[in-house]
Every structure is written in C-alpha cells, then in structure tokens.
C-alpha cells in the first residue's frame, strides 16, 4: 500500500509540474532549468538521512559523497539562478 501511495503522490506532482511549468515564458527557460535543478537537489534530505544512520566505513564514504554532491547541486543551483534572475530587469524609459 505504501508503494501505491508513493506512486499516487508522484503522478499527481507530475501533473502539477506540467501545469505550473508550461506557464514559464521562454525568456526564463535557463533560470527555470537551473532552479529546478537546485530543487532536484532535494536528494540532500535522503543523503542526510542515510548519513545519520551509516554504520560502516563504506556507508560513511557513500553518505559523505552523497551529501557533498547534493549540497553542490542545491547551493550552486539556487545561487546561480539568483545571479541570473537579478540581471533580468525592465528598463524604465
């Protein structure tokens, strides 16, 4: 049953994604990609959870790599998106 609930959540979220993202104008497609990329760094939660309960050296190493990679994804993704969006200005004239 757990799996079925997970699949339900996945499918519904995908529909929400399609609805929201089709409304993003082409001008913002690069920030959309880097921003959504940062959101996919949500794997950090999984990484932190497995890191918290790692009980072997190999497990610790895997957890460390997971946390590092996910953190690069999250921090880098949000920062670079912010840097880009800051440049999108409407000039008053």
């Amino acid at each position, binding site marked *: 049953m757990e799996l079925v609930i997970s699949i339900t959540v996945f499918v519904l979220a995908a529909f929400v994604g399609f609805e929201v993202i089709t*409304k993003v104008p082409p001008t913002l497609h690069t920030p959309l990609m880097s921003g959504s*990329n940062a959101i996919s760094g949500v794997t950090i939660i999984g990484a932190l959870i497995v890191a918290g309960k790692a009980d072997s050296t190999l497990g610790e190493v895997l957890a460390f*790599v997971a946390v590092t990679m996910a953190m690069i994804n999250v921090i*880098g993704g949000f920062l670079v998106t912010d840097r880009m969006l800051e440049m999108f200005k409407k000039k008053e004239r």
Partner: protein
Amino acid sequence: MSQELSALIYLVAAALFIFGLKRLSSPATARSGNQLAAAGMAIAIIVTLTNSGISAWTIIAGIIVGSGVGAYLARTVEMTGMPELVAAFNGFGGGASVMVASAEYLQNPDPAVQTIVTIALSVVIGAITFSGSFMAWGKLNGKLPGQPFGYPAQKLIDPLIVATIVFLGVMLVLDVGGSFVLWTLLVLGLVLGVTRVIPIGGADMPVVISLLNAFSGVAASMAGFVINENALIISGALVGASGLILTNIMVKAMNRSIANVLFAAFGGADSTGQGGTTSDKPVKAASAEDVAITMGYARSVIVVPGYGLAVAQAQHVLRELADLLEAKGVDVRYAIHPVAGRMPGHMNVLLAEADVSYDKLFALEDINGDFPRTDVALIVGANDVVNPAARDDETSPIFGMPILDVDFATTSVVIKRSLSPGFAGIDNPLFYNENNLMLFGDAKAAMQELVKAVAEL
C-alpha cells in the same frame, strides 16, 4: 520531532517549491520565486538535521565542502558557460541519488521486493544522469570533441547494455546474486550514460541537457521512493516534468524527434555531404555606413541574435547599437529562436547580462507575424534559424524547422564572416535575396563599426 510533524514540514517545503516555480511565470516575480524555493529547501534541510542530528562527520564535512564548491562555481561561472554548469549540477544531482540508494542498500541489504526495485531504478537512472551529464559537460566546454562520434557496433552495444540491465533487475527482484548484482547495475548505468551521449553532436546538447535535467528529477523521485519520503517524490516529479517540457520544446524547435536526436548522430554525415556548396548567385555586400543609414532612418528594427554573437562576446556592443538607435526614435526589439543558444533560454540570459530590458525580448511565435511590418531585420551570428529553405524548400534537410521570417522584413541585414553555410552545412538562400544586405566581418568588429557609423549620422 515526531514523524508526523516533520512530514508536515516537508510538505510545506514542497509547497514552497511549487509556489516558487509558479512565480517563474514572469521575470518580474521570478527572483522572489527562486528565493521562496531556496527557503523551502532550507526548511527541509533544517528539519532533517534536527531529526537525524549533525553529529556524524560525514554530514558536517559534506555540507561544508558541498556548499563551498557550489557557491564557488555559481559565483565564478561566465554566462556563456551556463550550459556546462547546469550539466555538471545535473550530474551531481544524479550522483547523489545513486549514493543515497547505495548507502540505503548497504544498511539494509535484504529489503522487500518493492524497495529493491526502487533502489535499482534509483541507482541506474542516477548513474546514467551522472555519467551522461559529465559527458555533456565535456562536450560543451570543449574538453571532449563536439562532433558526433559513431562507431560500428554502436547500434548493438546500447541495446545489449539495456537488456543486461533489465535481466539483472529481474535477478534482483527474484533475490538471486546478492549485492554483486546491484553494483553491476551501477557500473552498467555509468557506461550507458557515456555510450548514449558520446554519439550526439555538440549542436544537439540543448536537448541532451534538458533530457538529463528530467532524468535528475526522476532520480531524485526514485531516491524518495527508496527512503519513503514524499518531499523527494514531489520535488523530483516537478523537475522531471520541467525537463520533459523543455526537451519537447527544443526538439520541436529543431524539427526533430527525441529518438532522432538520441540515435541519429546528426551533424557528422550531413555536414560533410553538403558542406561548402555556396552558389554563384550575386549577393549585395554593404558597408557599415550603408547599414547604419538603413537602420538609423528606419521606424522599426528587429534584431535576431544567434550563438555566434555570444561567441564573439558582442552582446554589449549590440546593446550600445540598440541604445543609439532608440535615441533616434527607432523601435528596437529582439527575436529569440528557441535554439538560439546552447541551452533553452540561453540567449535571453546573455542579453539580460548585457542590460537589455526583458520586455524587448520576444519568442518566435510572439514576433514572427511582425516581420512584414518591420523595416530592418538585423541578423547577428545566426544562420539556420533564419533560413527560408526550412519554410519553402521541401527538399531541404531542415524543411519544417520553425524559422524567424526575416526575409519578410523590408530589408534584412546579415552580419557574417563569409557566405559559408552554418552548423548544419546547409546553404542559406536568404543571402541572395534582393532585399538582403551582407555586412561581412567578425560580429564584434562589425557591430563596433556600426555603432560608430550610427553615432555619426
């Protein structure tokens, strides 16, 4: 913190992601949207740390190293290098999903069937995303050859790998073979990412990045299935949807199918077949002064920038030119073809960096009808996306590709080094039109001459 409470807070985070993406529907609200999403992520991370504790060295070290590297990359990247960076970030995301699933498997090597299926999916999809993204990264920044790379057995090798992956997946479910099977799956996923991306030409990388973006989302979702966490499933699904939509837009703009991009090794054979076939028809070469007069006394100008503009670093000069023209009362707008960069929306970012107001940037379908009422269309660093053959010549290899109808403008001006055909190796009849002027030269140098000439009008 109780499990229910943290689950609810994760839900808040997921809702913030959705609100954030929703605010990306306009450049005016986009920045706050990204900040909302970042806030959602911060909340999710804090809740997780409160629950699992931050005692483990792996967590502290990982957060410090990851944040440092991420912040450094984000601050130092050039806007032209954005596609490589996004490809690399994609790769890290995919890699993280692999690691999460693998670590989970190590801790619990004999899980229920449904968990082992999601672990296997997470590992395989994550591994493909990881190695595929870094192949794309190498091709985009020139560390790997950009040409499509085909080898004789290619058509056999990929299906063989896929078949092996499926077979090993079945073995895992039937619980034969043990952990060795999972590690083999990981390696095969990595190999498949490489063999899948290597044959694809540099010009098709926008499609590949978009698709890998979708993959990184699905990989995050699968990791969510493994550890049974809805926040990951929701966020991953959002990103998967976004990547798929962008892939679809790119593929349509190139008049190709996803299968064709992935399997055709385009750009190699085709460009050698037709390359260099410039016809002997006369063209009208113009001087910077001629072009300056044509544009300076026009009512409306539409600029069509292509990636050549960015390569020549001429965005800022272009903006200067536009400012001068606007001061003379000329209406200047920009028409952006969906594939006018190395990733979706890339050209818009490059122009925004050069301080071009975003309300001047128009997508193909929003501006194409205006060309017949436009005095001058100025084409800089673009070629195939303004090739009328794509619209009129059924025998052309790019027939059917959506183009910007610059030939409908009263005058079209093409800034280009020579008459040589573009990336796809297809001759452009636009150059020989009665109402077309060629301004030969390097994009940046030619624009600088134009700026000078317009200023002297």
